[in-house]
């Protein structure tokens, strides 16, 4: 196994916090895998992201215990700028990520590359390519502050992907997007994965996680309570104890199971429902 991020017994608390915000977390993220971090609000998801991208301890102070290793090197040994090139972070709230110093979407997306000192023609090429990929070419001359929430969310994603980091940490990228836009963002994330990127995603939309992610890390009150392949975690009876959303189909199937229906397995995608409950159909040929 080729690990790219490793945490060993990591605990953290913010400067004024009395309790530990992350408690004794240990996990390994393999290179090229898509890992989703889930849990209810306040469970520590964003804090965990901040540790992974080195904002803790480089920017936020407080107490950090245990080891955080990124690409075989301890995170404390990096400079924040080095980590910024390695790890791209897309903010949860697109309204605060937009820099506020650029007048067009094109310049906003180019901002990161300019700061890395990339040569001008290359910047233009790369920005054009990304605008096309994210399907926001029509916004290129618009002012970033004049965009809708959904548009800003796409610009925020574009301005990180353009920097071509090995690891993408994405915090709820679709909260302001319509269903088609949401699916489109997930398709882009899948494309990034196919290009060999390691993806770490915070998200509440479990149907999409079931569809796209490889592994799950479940947080509850700052503790990792479950982790493993997506299918195994959703099927784990303990998952139900934490009052976290299930994929819709899983919720339906588990309810049927409680009412005496035998499940062949726990479905996590809509198209698995019929097989998992041994549905024999209503009329002949009612479905394929």
């Amino acid at each position, binding site marked *: 196994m080729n690990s790219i991020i490793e945490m060993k017994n990591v605990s953290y608390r913010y400067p004024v916090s009395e309790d530990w915000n992350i408690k004794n977390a240990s996990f390994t993220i393999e290179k090229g895998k898509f890992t989703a971090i889930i*849990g*209810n*609000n*306040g469970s520590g998801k*964003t804090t965990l992201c901040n540790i992974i991208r080195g904002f803790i301890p480089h920017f936020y102070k407080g107490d950090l215990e245990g080891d955080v290793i990124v690409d075989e090197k301890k995170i404390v040994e990096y400079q924040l700028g080095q980590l910024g090139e390695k790890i791209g972070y897309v903010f*949860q*709230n697109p*309204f*605060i990520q937009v820099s506020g110093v650029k007048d067009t979407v094109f310049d906003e997306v180019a901002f990161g590359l300019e700061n890395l000192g990339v040569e001008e023609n290359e910047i233009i090429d790369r920005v054009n390519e990304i605008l096309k990929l994210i399907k926001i070419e029509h916004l290129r001359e618009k002012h970033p502050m004049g965009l*809708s*929430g*959904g*548009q800003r969310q796409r610009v925020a994603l574009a301005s990180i992907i353009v920097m071509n980091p090995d690891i993408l940490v994405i915090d*709820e990228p679709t*909260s*302001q*997007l*319509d*269903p*088609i*836009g*949401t*699916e489109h963002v997930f398709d882009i994330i899948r494309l990034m994965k196919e290009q060999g990127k390691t993806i770490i995603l915070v998200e*509440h939309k479990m*149907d999409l996680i079931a569809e796209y992610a490889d592994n799950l890390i479940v947080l509850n009150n700052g503790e990792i309570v479950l982790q493993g392949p997506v299918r195994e975690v959703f099927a784990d009876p303990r998952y139900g104890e934490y*009052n*976290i*959303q299930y*994929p*819709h*189909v899983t*919720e*339906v199937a588990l*309810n*049927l199971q409680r*009412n*005496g*229906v035998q499940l062949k397995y726990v479905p996590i995608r*809509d*198209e698995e*429902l*019929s097989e998992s*409950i041994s*549905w*024999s*159909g*209503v*009329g002949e040929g*009612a*479905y394929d």
Partner: protein
Amino acid sequence: MTELQLKNVSFAYPDGTKALENLTLTVPAGKRLAIIGQNGAGKTTAVKLMNGLLKPTEGEVYVGDWHTKDYTTAQVSRKVGYVFQNPDDQIFHNNVELEVQFGPKNMGFDPERVTMLTDWAMELCGIRNVSHENPYNLPYSVRKFVTIASVLAMDSDVIILDEPTAGQDRIGLELLSKLLDELEGKGKTVIAITHDMEFVTDYFSRIVVMANRKIIADDVSEQIFYNHAILEESMLKPPAVAKMANLLGLEKGILTKGQLLSVLKKRDFMRGR
């Protein structure tokens, strides 16, 4: 009691960009309505016309018997409260309770009523335990509830929620569900803009679909989510339950988990399980 009425309303920005074309819509007092549609379809612009933040370039908007052109936004917003999509556009106090109190206080309610409304709104939004916190120390999802409470505390007849489910976990969704029931009990009109089709089908029966600056459908949810033409034009997707029902070859019209489960249980019973 305040009925909302849009009559042949169009809106264009000063630079001429058209945002809405010929909207006609009536929302009776005390009813719930969900507005759905793609980003950029005009949903937020439409509700900003309802509370007077924007005035139509053509047509008329009535709030009760008020023609919004004749009243200031401050006046209209006493009747129609609008919770912004982005909580950070709305919050400006450094303490949750002060933020929630501001509206009713500013409206000149007597101190007793201010306290009563503030407490009621904070309780309903699950933020009583953080009443002395700075809103900016709270997660986004909780800040959203701070802004909802701030608008509820103004006791307006109509409440507009813009993307209330964005970033909410199951606990937040359960809170919203309770909140909608309470508001219905009080006879308030609730209009919600949302992308969350499960939220729509669980809590709203009347749906307005917008696409390309127009209302393309205004109907009960069973008619909307099983109508391919509407779904295609608005580029919306049916809720997961409709997809599952379809895959199982069940009859049309099933939209909520409750409906699906009861149909499946009945079938199972008949097959002698």
